Structures are given as structure tokens and as C-alpha cells.
């Protein structure tokens, strides 16, 4: 299989200022994600997993070092240019889902498509197809309050997949779910990866991480193994 480098992180450091103190969240980390990867990023709370995901997505930029997404240096792009890149090339899944409560599952999935100016008819078709793909064909008109936690997370995954991104990043996707729902999300991720979706998942859940193709452990801002 011809594998393309989607994102390359080279000796990236990220510092945050908290009052008078500078907190170093990442310390010269290097990671490469290629097409077809299913990478699990593990580590204790505060180790820098979320910060690494934010750098991979271009949500945040490195204080030092370099992050290249499909060959483009993210540090040289404006905030809005990085947002536009994320809209089309990155799908994000959050621990707390962050679905709009007043919209139905279908409308939540349509949101990034609408933001990418996909025509209304095509938008609806693609959102329906991706919800069917995550097993929610019978929940299209339900609002988040009418869905279980696992179903909400699958809606969030569908939203992340809607614009057919090059990379899907998930931050603790099973953090709010029970074990059965976590297993279903893992199965879904494995199915998605098997059909070509590239995934990077930050997780505490070692069982979940064991289901990934590749795993790195981040401790104190560095890759431990």
C-alpha cells in the first residue's frame, strides 16, 4: 500500500503561561501519521496527549519545532486558514461530544458540511449516509437529549467523518461511556480504519488502546515508548 504522510510533528515543544509560571506541555516530541494509521496515544492525565492532538489538528501551534500537515507548515498559516484546513481535512471527536442540543442527529452531522458550503441536497444525503455508517439510521431525527451517551458519541464521530477528512482525531472518545458503549466505539473505529480512515485517538483506556494498530505513550510531554 502506498502510504502518504498526513502529518509530521518534528521536535515540537508547547509552552503555556499560567500567571508567572511557564508550563511545558510538550518537550520536543516527534510523531508521524500516515494514511491508514490507527494510532493510540496513551498516558496519564496532564501528560500532554490533548496538547499533541491539538498540534496535529492545527487547533494550536508549537512554541518550537515544526508541524507539517499534508506538507504545509501549520505555524505559517493564519488562524482562519488553519480552521479552513481542519474543516476539510480533519475530523475531531471530543470526550463530551459537544453536539448542539437543539439540533437533531442529522442536523448536527450537517453542520460541518454546511460550513464547507456543500449544497443542501448533497449535505442531507451525505449526513444520512455517514449516520447509517455509524449505525444510527434509525436515529436521524433524534436530538442529543433523546440519545444514549454511546449514540451521542457515534453522532459526533459521524460529524467528524462528514467532510471525508484525511485524518480523524479523537480525544478520550470513551471517557464518558460505559464499557459496552466503549467497545462499540472501538469496533466502529476499527471498521472505519479497515475501510481507509486514518485515526489518532488519545485515551486512558488501555483496552481501547490495545485495539489500535500502533500505540505511543506520552509521559511528561515526551514519548516514553
Amino acid at each position: 500500500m502506498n502510504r502518504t504522510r498526513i502529518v509530521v510533528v518534528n521536535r515540537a515543544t508547547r509552552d503555556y503561561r499560567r500567571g508567572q509560571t511557564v508550563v511545558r506541555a510538550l518537550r520536543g516530541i516527534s510523531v508521524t501519521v500516515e494514511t491508514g494509521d490507527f494510532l493510540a496515544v496513551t498516558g496519564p492525565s496532564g501528560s500532554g496527549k490533548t496538547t499533541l492532538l491539538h498540534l496535529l489538528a492545527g487547533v494550536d501551534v508549537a512554541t518550537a519545532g515544526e508541524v507539517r500537515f499534508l506538507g504545509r507548515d501549520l505555524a505559517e498559516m493564519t488562524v482562519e486558514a488553519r480552521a479552513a484546513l481542519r474543516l476539510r481535512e480533519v475530523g475531531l471527536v471530543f470526550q463530551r461530544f459537544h453536539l448542539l442540543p437543539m439540533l437533531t442527529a442529522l442536523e448536527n452531522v450537517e453542520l460541518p458540511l454546511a460550513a464547507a458550503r456543500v449544497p443542501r441536497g448533497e449535505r442531507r444525503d451525505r449526513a444520512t449516509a455517514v449516520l447509517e455508517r455509524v449505525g444510527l439510521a434509525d436515529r436521524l431525527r433524534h436530538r442529543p437529549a433523546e440519545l444514549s451517551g454511546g449514540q451521542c458519541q457515534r453522532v459526533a464521530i459521524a460529524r467528524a467523518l462528514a467532510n471525508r477528512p484525511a485524518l480523524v482525531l479523537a480525544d478520550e472518545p470513551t471517557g464518558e461511556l460505559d464499557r459496552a458503549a466503549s467497545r462499540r466505539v472501538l469496533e466502529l473505529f476499527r471498521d472505519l480504519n479497515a475501510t481507509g480512515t486514518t485515526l489518532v485517538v488519545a485515551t486512558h483506556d488501555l483496552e481501547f488502546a490495545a485495539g489500535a494498530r500502533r500505540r505511543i505513550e506520552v509521559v511528561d510531554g515526551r514519548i516514553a515508548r
Partner: protein
Amino acid sequence: MLALNAIRQLRYRPLRTVLTVGGVAVATAMLSDMLMLGGGIQRSFSAALESVGYELRLSPKGTLPFDTEATIRNIGGIRDTVESVAGVENLVPVLAQTLSITAGRSESPEPTASRQTLALGLDADEQGLYTLLAGRPPGDGEILIDPAMATLLEAHPGDRLSLGISSRFDTWGSDAIAEVSGTAEFVFATRRDMPVALPLADLQALSGRADQASFAMIRVRQGHAPESVREAIAAVTDRVEVVTLAGIAEQVDERLSYFRQLAAILASVSLLVASLLIGTISAVSVSDQLGVIAALRAIGVSRRRIVGNLTAESAVLCGVGGGFGITLSIVVAHYLESILADFPGLPTTVRFFVLSPGSLATAYGLVVAVGVAAGLLPALRATRLEVTALFHRAEP
């Protein structure tokens, strides 16, 4: 799309939405009513003045018509002088005098009803101070009465009334008898007044004020500017005050400056309340949705689109609340007008609240603009934050 999302967001929190819409409606109603009150009296007074149809007024030096009981002496001479000025078509003198009017025959032991009222002595062919409702204009020995007076005295055309110049009612007697010629609605009558009109010469004779008038109305010939004719009259006689309708309106406006200041202050308070209300609701809404805003920014939804969505909420709240507010303001204005109609000394043609599309549109536009601006600030502040900072605030 933005408005639709905003409506859904507002429907998602119905109690908050209803309370906010109610608050905006009350603020809009107050603002709208204050705008109507601010210019209402002045506008309706000007309209009443213009309805009379004469462009200039002549009054005793230093006064306005109806201001004092002072009269202009030698009105005949002044009339000749004024009518000789280029641009003057004619001058119509009017004498205003308090009369005691009594129904019943003087030979009967007791009067059936009496009333002290304002009488206007005028030339029935040259006036604009009343509109005939029934009967005919007053000729010699005749009197035209207000419908309320006709009801009070049970007087009908052809009935005879006793007229007394004394203001005392404890003596039964009369200085003259006049026959009722009809009824009329008087332009500057207050609700408590029941004015009457009789020929100028009759009232002058009855009140012992021969060749006197309380004020005079001057008609300007077509093609002449009232202001230049006023200046020409002022140049030929300095014994009287000559004012244009615009000048009277200006002076009335000055006297009503307290109303305008009060209305302006209350209108400003209403706007402030509306902006604080919308600003607070918008800030709470933004705070509630920080996680979603962070997620949308992270997904790549543009800042402009998110700000648009959040601001659309404020716009919908103000638009709907403002609409209810305008309706409420009309109802409140009618109610207040009915109370204030008894304001002492104010003609019934002069209104406190004059409904005008301009006032309503201004109130609505101001509330929507201020509300949207107040809603925009929290939205801009939130979306200016880095996505990581937004997440940190949403999930500390």
C-alpha cells in the same frame, strides 16, 4: 440558516426566551411611548393650528393667543393698517370672553341650568375655529354652542339662552338673550370647556369691549412667505405681537421642553435596560455554549459564522420582543391618552401621544440595533479566544 438555528436555540430554552422577549417588549413599549410623548403635543398642536387655515396670528404685545385676558385696543385701526401691507389678504379679529350662560326664561323663578364658559366673538364667515355640526353659523342675536353645552342646558336650535358677563352665579339675571343657531365642535376647546361663539360685535357690546379683540388671525396671499409678511407687519405696527404658526409652534415647543427632557431620559433608560437585558442573556447563552463554540471552532467552522449564529439569537429576541413592544406601546399610549385627556387647559385636539410610523420605526430600529450590538460583544469576545482557551474555560 442563521435565523433558523437562532430560533431553535431560543425554543430550546422557552422560559428564558419568553422572559427576555417580555423584557424587550416592555423596554420597546416604553421607548416608543416616550418618543411619541416627546413630540406628540407639539405635532398635534401644530396640526390644530394649521387646520384653522390662517398663517399669522396677532396678539397683545408680549403674549400668545389665549395666553392672557389682555386685549388689543383699536382693532379696527390695526386691521386697516395690517390689511394695507402687501401680502396680507385679510385680518379676522376674535374676542375671547368668559360668559355665564343660563337656560330658561328670565321671568321664571329659577334657572333650569347655568354654566360659565369661554365665548368667542368672531365673524362667522371668516373663521376656522369651529366646525359646524348642526344648525347654522351665528347671526346677530344668535349663539352657536358646543354639543356638551347643548346637552347640559338641554338647548336646541331656536331655544333662547340668557347671557351674563358676570362670573357670579348667585344672582339670577342676564345682560342679553341669544337664540341658539346650532352646535359646533371647537378646535381649541378643552374637555371641560363647552365653548360658544357669537358675532364679534355682539360680544364686544355685551362685554363693554368695543373695538377690542383678544387676538386676530391673518391670511397671507398666495405666493408670499408668512415670515416676510410677518416682518412687514411688524415694521408698520409695534403695538402688537405678530407670529407665524411656526413661531407659535416653536414657543409651545420651548414651553414643553420639560416633557421632552423627561421623555428623552426615560427613552434612554429604556434603551439601556434593553441593551443590558440582551447583553446579559447573550453573555449567559455564550457561557452556556462555550464547549460547543470551542468544538465548532476546532472543527473548523469560521469565527464569522459562529458570531453570526450567536448574534442572530439576539436579533430574533429583539425582533420578536420589539414587535410585541410596538403593539404594547400603542395600547399603553391609548390608555394614557384617555387619562391625560382631562389635563387642565389642554384642547381636545392636542394629544400627548401621537402615533406616527416614524416614532414606531425609530423605537423598533433602536431596540433591534442596540440589542444586536449588546449580543455581538459577548459573541466576539468568546470567539476571539484561542480554541484551547475556550476548551479550558468550558471544561476546567
